[in-house]
């Protein structure tokens, strides 16, 4: 019996001790008319060799394409040590550290994580992680409503340059609690949010302004001016940031005169594989004054009975298992393993390495854009400084171009037509330190052919 150790003699001994004749007797309290019949829709069991073969075939079917897609999930080198450690059984098969004495490894790792993420974002405190970047923004919006006592409106301003899926997720999760998300337009020349466009909100009750840096187009926003504008309106600022970029970009805690109030984002670029979209981890940091409004688990350092330092879950009075219907969130887990991957990644890559990864991503994207805009019918949409993504406008339909590139095993970017129809045929492309000049040349060659044949057709 797979994963069940009982011999026939064991089963008999256990049943005898219980005083039951058959295993089925143990289910006597379930009304007979409800009992399940054979599960004909479940296939026969496979042993490990058989499932291994099936999964290898399935994985091979997905191929090894050369990908230039970003749009919220980024390909980076992952040091081998990261997953060698994360998948150790002592981490992989442990649960939430409720028994602190038996979970010091996990707890100390969370404390180290909190320290690194707080410093990276330039804020004072971090939680132990949330599900992903999109749901972290939803939680940040809910938190802002609790934290901004000057505001009664629950109005959150969200620039169109914030990842559109994040906005949708925030609406789906927070919309039931009467939060209102209002979209702000962007500058069609720069692909960024202009402070002047916010004029019409001045004097109104705004709970928070969301600023994504780099924004969804890869463009850098004027974060200082936007932050100061929001604070003048008594609104809080929620930063959505890419953690890799913080190797070189200004920490949200330093934006404007006062710094942001909450920073959040997707932790995936820090040692977590693309893996079809998950599991990733969301991060969230804030100022100490708002810590009691923060959702999710938090670890603190304390001492044991002998005065020896140790780690434990703290501020639990915010959480669902204590406060039930009045909790800050229904969140119960964090993304423990992924947070660990992020911590180990940051320890290995260090401050110099992270800055190099960020720099290399900027320069590789420059090289990519240079190579692609030299092709007839391809141009960049925006003229502002960017991090590691860029919007390209094509004179052929993006969907057709992408599928012809895919036929050549190149995933050429993310089609923006669904969320940004005003850009026409537009692709969001990305290159990180993983892309060599020959990868970029291969893409440019393929795109040149595809654009030419599309024009000839």
């Amino acid at each position, binding site marked *: 019996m797979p994963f069940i150790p009982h011999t026939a003699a064991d089963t008999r001994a256990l049943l005898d001790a219980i005083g039951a004749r058959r295993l089925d007797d143990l289910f006597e309290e379930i009304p007979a008319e*409800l009992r399940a019949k054979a599960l004909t829709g479940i296939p026969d069991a496979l042993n490990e060799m058989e499932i291994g073969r099936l*999964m290898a075939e399935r994985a091979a079917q997905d191929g090894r394409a050369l990908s230039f897609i970003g749009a919220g999930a980024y390909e980076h080198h992952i040091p081998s040590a990261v997953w060698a450690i994360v998948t150790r059984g002592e981490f992989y098969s442990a649960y939430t550290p409720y028994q602190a004495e038996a979970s010091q490894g996990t707890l*100390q790792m969370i404390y180290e994580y909190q320290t690194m993420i707080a410093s990276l974002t330039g804020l004072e405190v971090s939680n132990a992680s949330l599900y992903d970047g999109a749901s972290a923004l939803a939680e940040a919006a809910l938190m802002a409503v609790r934290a901004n006592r000057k505001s009664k409106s629950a109005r959150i301003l969200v620039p169109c340059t914030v990842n559109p899926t994040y906005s949708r*997720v925030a609406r789906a999760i927070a919309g039931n609690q009467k939060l209102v998300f209002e979209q702000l337009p962007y500058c069609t020349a720069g692909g960024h949010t202009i402070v002047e466009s916010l004029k019409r909100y001045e004097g109104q009750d705004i709970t928070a302004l969301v600023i994504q840096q780099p924004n969804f187009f890869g463009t850098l926003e004027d974060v200082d001016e936007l932050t100061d504008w929001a604070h003048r309106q008594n609104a809080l600022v929620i930063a959505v940031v890419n953690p890799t970029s913080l190797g070189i970009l200004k920490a949200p805690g330093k934006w404007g005169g006062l710094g942001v109030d909450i920073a959040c984002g997707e932790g995936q670029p820090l040692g977590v594989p693309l893996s079809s979209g998950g599991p990733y981890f969301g991060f969230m940091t804030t100022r100490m004054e708002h810590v009691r409004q923060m959702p999710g688990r938090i670890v603190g350092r304390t001492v044991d009975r002998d005065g020896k330092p140790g780690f434990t879950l*703290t501020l639990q009075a915010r959480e669902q298992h204590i406060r*039930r219907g009045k909790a800050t969130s*229904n969140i119960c887990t964090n993304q423990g393993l992924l947070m660990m991957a992020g911590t180990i990644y940051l320890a290995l890559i260090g401050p110099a*390495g992270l800055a190099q990864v960020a720099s290399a991503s900027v320069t590789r994207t420059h090289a990519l854009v240079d190579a692609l805009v030299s092709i007839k019918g391809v141009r960049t949409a925006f003229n502002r400084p960017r991090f590691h993504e860029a919007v390209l406008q094509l004179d052929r339909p993006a969907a057709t171009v992408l599928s012809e590139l895919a036929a050549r095993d190149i995933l050429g970017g993310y089609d923006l037509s669904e969320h940004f129809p005003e850009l026409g045929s537009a692709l969001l492309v990305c290159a990180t330190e993983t892309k060599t000049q020959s990868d970029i040349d291969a893409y440019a060659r393929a795109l040149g052919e595809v654009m030419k044949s599309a024009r000839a057709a």
Partner: protein
Amino acid sequence: MTEKLIFEYSHPGRGATAQHPNTADAHGLPAKFLRTAAPLLPEVSELQAVRHFTRLSQLNFSIDTHFYPLGSCTMKYNPKACNQYALLPGFVNRHPLGAESHGQGFLACMFELQEMLKEVTGMQGVSLTPMAGAQGEFAGVAMIRAYHRARGDHERTEIIVPDAAHGTNPATATMCGCTVREIPSTPEGDVDIDALTAAVGPRTAGIMLTNPSTLGVFERRIGQVARIVHDAGGLLYYDGANLNAILGKVRPGDMGFDVIHMNLHKTFSTPHGGGGPGSGAVGVSARLLPFMPIPLVGRDGERYRWLTEKDLPQSIGRLSAFMGNAGVLLRAYIYMRMLGREGMPRVAEYATLNANYLLKRLVAAGFDAAYPNRRASHEFILTLKRQARTLNVTAMDFAKRLLDHGAHAPTTYFPLLVPECLLIEPTETEAKEDLDAFIEAMIAIQREAETAPDTLKNAPHTLPVRRLDDLRANKQLDLTWKPQAA
């Protein structure tokens, strides 16, 4: 045994340079966008990092190293194959927005997982996207609300929750903009039918139930509960926390539930990972099909494709940036294929066998069951209120002393309505010898409670730290490390 903080190994200028990219070019970004002070990240060699994190791992209890009978959490063996095959390069390197043509292998696994979960739960549709049980709960209650709204039934905003429920249930109802109405349980652990009948009405959106309940017993009158709630116009939500107890034996869909979430990290053995990632797939009855969270995986002939807003315009929407914890879903898929048709009911049978064996032997040894007249499900509750009264030792003292015996503590002080309780769930993957060792440990601790209670009160004695000062942790908040001023 303790371990220094990673920051205390740091030396300026050191680094795991084999991990750094080769880059000579300057990024050339304007200064106004740049950070001026480097972040506080450690500067350590690769070996220092590996040794540090390996040592940290050795401070943990885990399923791979210890018996872990944590009630309500289903800490069963996580087969290594599930991890290894989910980490095949084709899967881990696949971008979530990659072309469907380059994801047919992955999508096939997800489609088949949806179908298998429908079959074991008796539901009509499954969405895999919720990222944890609590998010599955959110999706479920949001669907119930969307269903009532779509019918113009705007008054239905009240969610009924038994007092034994997980804290996530009322917290979820609040997140969905609903109010919570709590109803009591009977002394035998069933839903109080009179209280339920009095609670339902035109404001009832639905009821959230765990069955078997968190009291470790099966709700025998589930058919009657379903009729009362449905007749009042409400829907039934099944909290799948305890699905392991009934897998393949009775299906939530057949009990009358309209929506369920499954904790794949419990029943389908994906890793708990020190507190996540979870995965909280939801299943629905026919009337909730249009409201499922997206994306789903559909099949057109031989090709698999994503189903999105266009296919389900009434969907409650997206709950994650992509499709939830895809890699966790692959692990659950592999596990289910390895169990196969006959393996599903065996999970429930042997989990229940192990729990009832432990209960019987512990009661014979003098412990008090919270529900002595009931058959245990896959877990059961002991109450130590007699020991607390007569010996002045608590459930927490027992729990801490168990750690010294090499067993992770059971769940303590949950459910809240049983005083001094231990919620014990051995799971089906534990052998008789390991159950017997736990029984012996409990008997030894009971004897110690009678003869040397201080040994319990001061436990644990053999772990990396002794009991921690939680009060100080709360009052003198130390949430990040700060470098000492030089």
